């Protein structure tokens, strides 16, 4: 059932480097959770990495949070996105996010 698939957020901090692994769906319902998680965690971070290997779905609400994170990090460090699968890559391409984000 689609209703059961939510978003799992896993954070892994190493000094001023933070790795955020997302699993599931980043959509209108789950994006606010991620936004909340990031708001309280980015103060001392210089290097932010998103691992999206198991991200199955992203909508504009998810992109918004990534864009906000990118704006925050641009001013004080760096942000990169790894493990982008085909499905998510297509969305990034269509929306110009491949130009905004550093995708590895």
């Amino acid at each position, binding site marked *: *059932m*689609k*209703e059961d698939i939510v978003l799992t957020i896993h954070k892994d901090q190493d000094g001023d480097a933070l790795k955020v692994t997302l699993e599931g769906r980043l*959509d*209108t*319902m789950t994006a606010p959770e991620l936004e909340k998680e990031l708001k309280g965690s980015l103060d001392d971070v210089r290097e932010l990495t998103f691992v999206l290997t198991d991200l*199955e*779905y992203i*909508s*504009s*609400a998810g*992109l*918004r949070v990534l*864009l*906000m994170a*990118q*704006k925050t990090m*641009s001013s004080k460090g760096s942000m990169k996105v790894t493990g982008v699968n*085909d*499905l998510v890559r*297509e*969305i990034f391409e*269509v*929306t*110009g996010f491949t*130009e*905004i*984000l550093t995708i590895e």
Partner: protein
Amino acid sequence: MKEVRGEVQGDRISLILSGRIDSNNAGDTEAAIRAIADQAPGKPVLIDAEGLEYISSAGLRVILRLRKTNEDVHIINVNPEVYEIFDMTGFTQMMTVDKAYRVVSVEGAEEIGRGANGTIYRIDQDNVVKVYNNADALEEIQHEREVARKALVLGIPTAISYDVVRVNDSYGSVFELLNAKSFSKILAEEPEKMDWCVKEYVDLLKKIHGTLVPKGQLPVLKDTVLSWGEFMKPYLTEEEHEKLMRMINEIPEDDHMVHGDYHTKNVELVDDEVLLIDMDTLAVGHPILELASMYNAFIGYSEYDHNNVKKFQGFDFETALEFWHKVLSAYLETSDEKKIREVEDKARIIGLIRMIRRSIRRKGLETPDGKAEIELWLSELKELLGKTDSLLFRSNELDVEATGENLSKVIGFVTAFLEEADCPLKTQMQIEVAVEEIFVNIANYAYAPEQGNATVRVEVSDDPVTVTIQFIDQGFPYDPLAKQDPDVTMSAEDRQIGGLGIFMAKKSMDDIAYRYENGKNILTMKKKITG
């Protein structure tokens, strides 16, 4: 004292006044009333004045004094002349005084409809009367008037009774129904109008099933069906009965309206308008419950004796078969015989338990024909129970309150169609993105700051396999596609947060179009889903 009779009935004093009450017999009348009323001091009094021909001021004073000891006095069945006296003297303001019911004869009147609890006759060119089977039907009449009123307020075209009358030994309610012709009569007399009837009949059915009813306003039909299921216990194996009850229990709660007795005698063409009548069975529930009673009306009750449908609807069994099949096909919006058959079988299970229960309770097992009919139905039911695992069927339309919380419901509804069509995962995700963006947009803006509903329709067509998804809302007219696309070449610093959703929907689908029609925003989007 022949002018007064009466007794104490439980918590109520019941009096019958008759003849003339004036200064000559007012004293005796009062004594007779007191003798009865003093047995139950202060209790409510119901006065039946059907036989009362005249009451003078002396008589009126008797009633006033009665009201001092027994506050609640209710006078019924008052003839027009006596009612005028009560009215002129202000009594109608002081207590409840009900006029006697007009007497109406239906002898020789044309029968134009028949429902579970009464029969409808035309009494003159403009008026019809529904005569109730139950002799003590005042409460039923009240109920039916009340539900008809609710339905009308919710947008269902129906007639509301304006008068209650006596017909023989029972009550009737009178409706204005100018030049009405039932769909049964049209089907019987003008067979060339079959397809027109199917369309109008299904349009009205969809309107009923698309009407959300505020909680608690109408009975829950599923509860009734559960009681039919319980009744079947002695007639099925333990395993069959468990399966039946599980399947009924699995029918989801549904706050949409169902008519409960939707056959062609209850749908009337009045001038150019199609009206629904006989509203006493109105309820809320899943559409399969409605389809079950429709199956019974056209096929079920006539399966054993094909003449039944002719007797009841006025057209023959072949017409009934054709009409039912076309209706089901139009309602489900498919010509796929397998799918039609599948839904019909589900409807039959509920239809059969209803008929079996009804017939057994009416001593059907005691006559050879009744017994043979019940046995036929029972064998069909057992066969169907063997091959059916669920009573649910998928409608291609979902009507939900447009809120973010309902997003997963909408996504789940759409993806079920995509999965069935073997849609590739990537395409499915693109479609999901478009559905989410459009639905969230409606949820956030269409009715803001109020809330309203959105309807989502899905259609999958062949050659090449293409999905069409339609969003319909009745919010402010707004074309989301008119908004300028965001500049996707800007850098992160310059990009606006937001404004991406509709753009993503446009990019995800092959075609997307908006129109405003009859007060509705209609957004239609298409995508080919073959690899």
